[in-house]
């Protein structure tokens, strides 16, 4: 009689908190190639995060700085000397803008993902649990938005929102909210699907039989179990947020250079440079995008694989046949008799 394979608990709830944290618990579970991918992803992401937090220290100049005590920066200067990665057509220091860009990217990720998690989780929980017409309508709406090219939704939203001004805050909010709109359906779908699955789980039903109220069931029983996949979605969506932000910037719906440094925008401006032999203005922002997305995606993918028992690799039993429990039959006999 083989037990039903229910989703195995991702973490042992009693292990020390530290080891239970999403990424750390995943790290402990990983082996071999998967650990390699996770580690590379964590390293890339970590460098990104550190750069973002320490941008004021790391960046030689401000993101919109055009001159220093020695006078105006030269424009389109090749990498080297005072400007390690060169300068742009407007005279910005490329290195500084790449570094400050991490901050913009991080802010947008955080705002976008936090907003969409909130909205998506609440909607998903309620819709999945209550069901009925509300659910159907939300599903059709979410599916419609989900099925529609998300970048286009983001563009439309960016226009609607950037009706405000492109101050740093305004610009980031515009980008973040437009990304949020795109993500809500994703969170909604995932959480709703989980909720529906969990709703039929015996432990939820057992709460129902003892007369727990809907709110209590949603908050105490479903919520925590339904949100287990969130770290995964978080990382994957974070990388998508970067791409969407960059795409918006590239298409000219992003954040202006005087408000913040934004890679997609810089890349857009660099198009003309690249074909004129000025490769440094476009290459570095582009690589920064690839770097960040690669890091986040690697982390997300690894978490995904590690969460999925089917996909999780396991180390081979190293010892071929050492000591092992080759204890004698008699020992068993004892054990058996003792029962």
């Amino acid at each position, binding site marked *: 009689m083989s037990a039903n394979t229910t989703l195995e608990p991702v973490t042992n709830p009693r292990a020390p908190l530290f080891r239970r944290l999403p990424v750390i618990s995943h790290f402990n579970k990983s082996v071999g190639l998967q650990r390699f991918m996770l580690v590379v992803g964590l390293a890339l992401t970590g460098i990104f995060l550190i750069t973002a937090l320490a941008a004021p220290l790391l960046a030689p100049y401000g993101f919109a700085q055009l001159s220093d005590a020695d006078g105006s920066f030269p424009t389109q200067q090749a990498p080297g000397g005072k400007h390690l990665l060169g300068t742009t057509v407007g*005279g910005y220091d490329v290195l500084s803008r790449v570094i400050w860009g991490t901050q913009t990217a991080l802010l947008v990720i955080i705002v976008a993902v936090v907003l969409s998690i909130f909205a998506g989780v609440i909607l998903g929980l309620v819709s999945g649990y209550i069901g009925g017409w509300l659910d159907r309508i939300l599903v059709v709406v979410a599916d419609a938005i989900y099925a529609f090219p998300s970048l286009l939704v983001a563009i439309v939203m960016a226009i609607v929102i950037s009706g*405000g001004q492109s*101050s740093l805050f305004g610009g980031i909010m515009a980008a973040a909210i437009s990304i949020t709109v795109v993500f809500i359906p994703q969170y909604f779908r995932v959480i709703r699907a989980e909720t529906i699955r969990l709703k039929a789980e015996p432990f939820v039903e057992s709460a129902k039989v003892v007369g727990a109220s809907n709110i209590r069931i949603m908050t105490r029983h479903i919520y925590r179990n339904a949100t287990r996949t969130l770290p995964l979605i978080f990382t994957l969506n974070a990388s998508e947020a970067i791409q969407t932000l960059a795409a918006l910037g590239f298409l000219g719906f992003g954040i202006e250079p005087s408000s913040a440094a934004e890679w997609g925008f810089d890349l857009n401006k660099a198009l003309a440079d690249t074909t004129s032999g000025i490769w440094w203005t476009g290459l570095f922002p582009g690589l920064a995008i690839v770097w960040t997305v690669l890091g986040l995606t690697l982390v997300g993918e690894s978490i995904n694989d590690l969460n999925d028992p089917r996909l999780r690799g396991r180390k081979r039993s190293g010892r071929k046949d050492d000591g092992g429990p080759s204890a004698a039959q008699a020992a068993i006999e004892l054990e058996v008799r003792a029962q």
Partner: protein
Amino acid sequence: ACTGPSGGGGGGTASGGSGGGAITFGTTDKVVTLDPAGSYDAGSFLVMNQVYPFLMNSKPGSAEVSPDIAESASFTAPTEFTVKLKPNLKFANGHALTASDVKFSYDRVLKINDPNGPASLLSNLKSVDAKDDTTVVFNLKAGNDQVFPSVLGTNTGPIIDEEVFPADKVMSDEDIVAAKPFAGPYTIDSYKKNELVSLKANADYSGLLGKPANDSAVIKYYADSNNLKLDVQGGNIDVAGRSLTATDAADLDKDSKVKVYKGPGGELRYIVFNFDTMPFGAKTPEANPAKALAVRQAMADIVDRQAISDQVYKGTYVPAYSVVPDGLPGASQPMKDLYGDGSGKPSLDKAKKALSDAGVTGPVNIKLQYNPDHYGKSSGDEYAMVKEQLEKSGLFTVDLQSTEWVTYSKARTADAYPVYQLGWFPDYSDADNYLTPFFIPGNFLKNHYENPTVTDLVQKQLTTPDKTERQKLIGDVQTAVAKDLSTLPLLQGSQLLVAGKDVKGVEKTLDPSFKTRLGVLSK
């Protein structure tokens, strides 16, 4: 009025006319519509100027308008502008082109009054009379309108076939092309909107622009000026027009396969001051006209136009020291003398003095707005530089913000922006086009600037037939507004055309009329 047989010259690729092979012209300006009643933009005009006849047009090399398919055109009374057509004019479809078509063309623009159309240019036109087959009289509301002849050479001006166009609605491009109502230097051979237009020289045209030097021309449309640049470099197109970025232009300058031609440009980029809301403006708590003026003056003293031109635009835009771009009859450069060091360079001392004289202490906070998507990709860099210059003086702190165009153009007239960027492409090549729309009450800036003297001067120059006198008046207006600083002109665009080495005649179309005539190109 139309007698000619219908359905004349069909397709056929037989080459006629003079000149050599086809010329390919690449541009990023898009066509709104080929129907003159429905468009008011450079892209549409580029095609219209090749295929439609005009009463007045400007000859290659000159900005002055003179009769195109007309024999003569002049004021026969202060409010009567009479045009006499050349005899036996014909459209490419065989229909005769008569005074009745002319009347039809102008009536139609006014009647349709399309939201995208040019009807507003004809605000001084009361009615049009076709006296006989070749005589047309334009009845004006205000007399002696010196710019009216110029207006006839703008988007409103194409003469169209009344047998083809519906009188009350805009016609689709495909239908227009199919009906061949063309009588300009070219006719349209094949048409793929905003992708490819192929033109064929029109043997029947005998107007001002002359016979094309090539027998056919192709206009190819690009969205990204970078691709345009790469294609002209690669020889896929012969000439690339307008909107090349500074980097592109600088790079092309170095390329031996192509030649960059630069001509005077009509585009003006300037900063607008809202007299109500700018620092010390009339509606601010510390309203003080003198201080406000001092702030404007100090800014004018400080901005380093040459630096912006060099750094951001690599010389594709040049400094502008007047509200009328250099090169137009009557243009002067009053701001060169009035502000800065007197030679166009900035002067910090002068700025300090201006402020302290007016009793302004401490750095003035300027809320500066620009628009990132309407005036080219470099606006951001341009204004970053303005901010940098202002702040470096220590006299200003700048809060620089940008807003997307539609909101921007609404908000600016709603007093939302105290100090902001705008740009201007002229409707026609006349200094007045830089004055009337800006400095008389009810102007489109809506910046609450009013100076009766300026208003008087502007109206006076408009009706002064004598050229020298008029130019002097125009100079006076420029000086007067330069003193008031309703706007602070920064840069003036130049026209850029890039052509393969083998292309001839490019420089002929680079004149202050800002019109591209494909007919002068050949190879």
